[in-house]
């Protein structure tokens, strides 16, 4: 299940970030923050790749690591970058179920669809924090559904 979902703007500031165990929010913010360099690295490496390898989904950003606060949980970070350079980072708890790549991919796809809806909302100013209720409930469903 996804334990943290973050949307990060082109200029690397957060547009939206939410994690499920709210008591350790800062820890997750830190995890997302540290994965941004890996995202950048992956994008610049991808510029030279062949067309079929230039997809938006970046895959696993970081090898599995144990989460210090809950020693039994294994957390993985996955990344996705839209063509407009907006980054999605998801921290996934894979301790009891190993999620397949395809599932993660479809989760990102859903997230991207939702983000597009937010962008096309005339009441939203591009670059502002996302306060959309629809987006919020989609993220919530993603955090619960996969567990």
């Amino acid at each position: 299940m996804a334990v943290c979902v973050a949307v990060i703007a082109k200029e690397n500031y957060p547009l939206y970030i939410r994690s499920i165990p709210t008591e350790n929010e800062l820890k997750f913010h830190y995890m997302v923050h540290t994965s941004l360099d890996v995202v950048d690295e992956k994008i610049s490496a991808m510029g030279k790749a062949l067309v079929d390898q230039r997809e938006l989904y970046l895959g696993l950003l970081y090898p599995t690591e144990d989460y210090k606060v809950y020693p039994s949980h294994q957390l993985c970070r996955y990344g996705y970058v839209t063509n407009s350079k907006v980054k999605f980072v998801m921290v996934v708890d894979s301790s009891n179920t190993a999620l397949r790549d395809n599932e993660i991919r479809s989760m990102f796809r859903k997230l991207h669809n939702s983000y597009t809806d937010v962008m096309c909302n005339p009441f939203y100013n591009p670059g502002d924090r996302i306060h959309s209720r629809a987006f919020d409930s989609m993220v919530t469903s993603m955090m619960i559904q996969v567990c």
Partner: protein
Amino acid sequence: MADEALFLLLHNEMVSGVYKSAEQGEVENGRCITKLENMGFRVGQGLIERFTKDTARFKDELDIMKFICKDFWTTVFKKQIDNLRTNHQGIYVLQDNKFRLLTQMSAGKQYLEHASKYLAFTCGLIRGGLSNLGIKSIVTAEVSSMPACKFQVMIQKL
């Protein structure tokens, strides 16, 4: 994209709406073009987000311009750009021989002075799309004889 007739009608109303409010003093006269351009900018940002959702990552600037000329133009105006030229130093000229938003007006030079009103929104559309893809630019349009027009895109290097 909504039915194209609706888009044309809405666009026409938008232009006349903005100019009418200028007459009543709500918008400063001469700011109308800017206002239409800004509307286009916001729409372009939203549209490009939607259109590039399923495409692969772009390789370079030219790749992006080709996308604008082909996919973007086809979705919005139901046809491709007829000619794309570049000097490879940040200037692109997009030529459309039968631009949709001008086809309703009679061909030739009769309404030439009004053409710029009907191109401002599209200039913004291009600029907004490019800016969302990470390219800052200045877009200008020119018309010499009616349904044909040229958009010049000047990329602003950082």
